[in-house]
């Protein structure tokens, strides 16, 4: 009981004051990107340049997502570390409950966290558990601790961020991606666009095939 209390207070402090991206945070989001949008023909992309881009996208978004006034001062709450921890803890719960279909790589887990040690499909199972609140919420870090609303608010956007990060122009920003939004410049043709056959924005297309009817009648 008391142990739980101290863990919760510890995680509250970490949430409020930990500003640095923890090493496992990047590993979790690289793993998430790998399971949502793997590189075609390459189911294991872990550690690839693309996954690093995708992790940066997740981390930036989650760390700038929530801003509230605390003690009369607007503060931005970095969510990336806490969300990564939540995924790791939920991954552990998946394994403890025997719901993973593939064995986890325990050697990998100690360095990169439990989530990244799971098979890509089991990582989706972790998200699914969270989406359906089938995890022990008391085992999650602040602000998710016993708080189904914040769990759903964050988990519901994770898949979308993965695909938006990969199929938008983001991967074309190269090193400028880590700068402020106004400083981002397309330095290469985005990989996702290439994969799907999108030629990139154009000023117009000669695509007119007439009009079904030129005028409405009443």
């Amino acid at each position, binding site marked *: 009981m008391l142990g739980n209390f101290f863990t919760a207070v510890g995680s509250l402090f970490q949430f409020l004051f930990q500003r640095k991206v923890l090493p496992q945070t990047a590993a979790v989001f690289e793993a998430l990107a790998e*399971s*949502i*949008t*793997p*590189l*075609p023909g390459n*189911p294991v992309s872990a550690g690839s340049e693309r996954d690093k881009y995708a992790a940066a996208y997740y981390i*930036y978004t989650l760390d*700038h*997502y929530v*801003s*509230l*006034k605390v003690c009369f001062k*607007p503060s931005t709450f970095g969510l990336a570390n806490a969300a990564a921890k939540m995924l790791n803890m939920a991954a552990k719960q998946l394994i403890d409950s025997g719901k993973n279909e593939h064995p986890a790589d325990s050697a990998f887990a100690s360095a990169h966290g439990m989530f990244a040690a799971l098979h890509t*499909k089991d990582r*989706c*199972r972790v998200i699914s558990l969270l989406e*359906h609140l089938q995890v022990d919420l008391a085992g999650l870090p602040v602000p998710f601790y016993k708080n189904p*609303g*914040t769990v*759903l*608010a964050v988990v*519901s*956007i994770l*898949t*979308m961020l*993965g*695909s*938006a990060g*990969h*199929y*938008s*122009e*983001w991967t074309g920003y190269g090193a400028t991606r880590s700068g402020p*939004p*106004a400083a981002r410049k*397309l330095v290469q043709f985005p990989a*996702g666009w290439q*994969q*799907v*056959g*999108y*030629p990139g*924005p*154009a*000023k*117009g*297309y*000669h*695509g*007119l*095939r007439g*009009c*079904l*009817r*030129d*005028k*409405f*009648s*009443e």
Partner: protein
Amino acid sequence: MTYDADAIIIGAGGGGPVAAKALGELGLKTLLLEAGPWYGHKKWPRPNEERGPQGDNNPANLSSELLRKCFTDNEDDMNNYVTGKFRWGHADRNRPPWFRYIPSGGFIWQSSGVGGTTLLYFANSPRAFPGAVDDLWPISYRTLLPYYEKVEATLPVVAAPMTAKEELFFFGAQKAGWPRLKTRNVTSPGYRPQPNAIFSPPPQITDLQYKFNGAETGCTLRGHCINGCSIGPTVAKTAKRSTFASYVPLALNTGAVEIRPNTFVTRILTATEKGSLVATGVSFRDTWTGHTGELNAKVVIVAAGAIETPRLWHNSHLPYNPWVGKGLTNHWFDCISGIFAEQDLMQILGMPDVKPYVGQNSAARFDYPGLGVLQGLGLSPGLFASFLYTLSDSYDFLRRPDPAVPWNFCGKVTGDKLARLMQDYPRTLSILLFTDDEVNQHNGVSFSSFLQDEHGPIPVVTYRPGHKDKQKRDKLAAIAADILKKAGAKSILRADCAPYLFAHMQSTMRMGYVVDEDCETLQVKRLYIADNSVLNNSLGGPNPTLTTQALATRTAEKLAHKYFGGV
């Protein structure tokens, strides 16, 4: 008492500028206050980086060159929820967005800025279904008609041009046995081109040698409605008729309207006059400097959108009304798509793909009064992938196979499967679905004094569609799948969106409950509402903006008559 203006309008989105233009034409001095930036304006050449002046009223300062600089066509740059130019947040994108809390998950897609969410809307401008208005609203459909006609002529609204994706949609709808609709007053099911507030393509569109430069008058079919349309020789002639390009220039032309961007209204001010509460003005906060101030006017019109309008009511401590913020409808979206084989497309269209990035984002529709709406959807790939494959709360691979359903995939798709499906992007035809969702007082916006930002308690949004809504949505999904099958799709995908996507928020300050039939609030006189929140219900499914704009036109007329002697 001296007044800063005859009328103050809060919010320059879908509704606010419509009221501003009507009041300006009557010679009423009008201040239009907008929380976000102003794109395409010489006084704000770097709207996301510098504060610029307080406001402007000169239509000659609008600049299409600057608009093209701001609208880069890149989907993340424009539509990223956190840093996009079209986000609900401060003009300065280095600052975080303004937070809304949705405890059941999802995201609210609204934009601050002159133009509001019409900066990124598709400009689909259908009327409500008559059957969703008559005997349900305090006013009849017939009452709305002259205002619909006026807005349709002003924007203007025209039948959308057809590209390959629309031709395929119509081909499927026809083969499925649905009739073509020939009216804007829809009472029975059928398909038709979208009535879009987008100028028809320019004559050069058929000249294959012609190279587009972005300054043409008319839609060049480049598929960036959602990422910001900047096609046009001037701002006022921009192809897509977002309000920043339609009603805003018209309002400025009257010489009676001033617009102040970067001005967040935090409170509606009131006084008691002859025993009743009346609006007297607003408190605002300059979003760049944090300075606050007050402005007063004879009439205040709130057009801050379906979430912020009830928030303002709450944060201004206006009288309790059990319907303030309640009754939210949102058309519980879904998306059904078909993937086609090259040879089939060759046969039907004479080309091997449909290219979802060519043409207006949504240019074909199917209406079904009693159920809702289906409409064609084609987008750039990041947004496309998000709509099709990420918005469910379950994974396709975790579902038990069900041979009875007409789709091959249902729910979120990830991994190798997603990569493979996205390789079919050029051959995918998508249909967006809007449910005729019912008003429920449990759905809406509430506030907790615990969660605040610099503008006061933040909105907490709840939306749980009911059993009937689910039934309607499932029926529509089956119709969409059938249309795609009949068109020749080889496989069908259902996104099975959870009620996560908030893009058509409406009916949170309903006519008949919070406002009267002229959109004046029942409890505070001289306070009017002119945005999606006054809609009495979900209109039966049709996209809401045209109806909001028709009502805003009517509201301006009514308030001028009541408080300014008709001028």
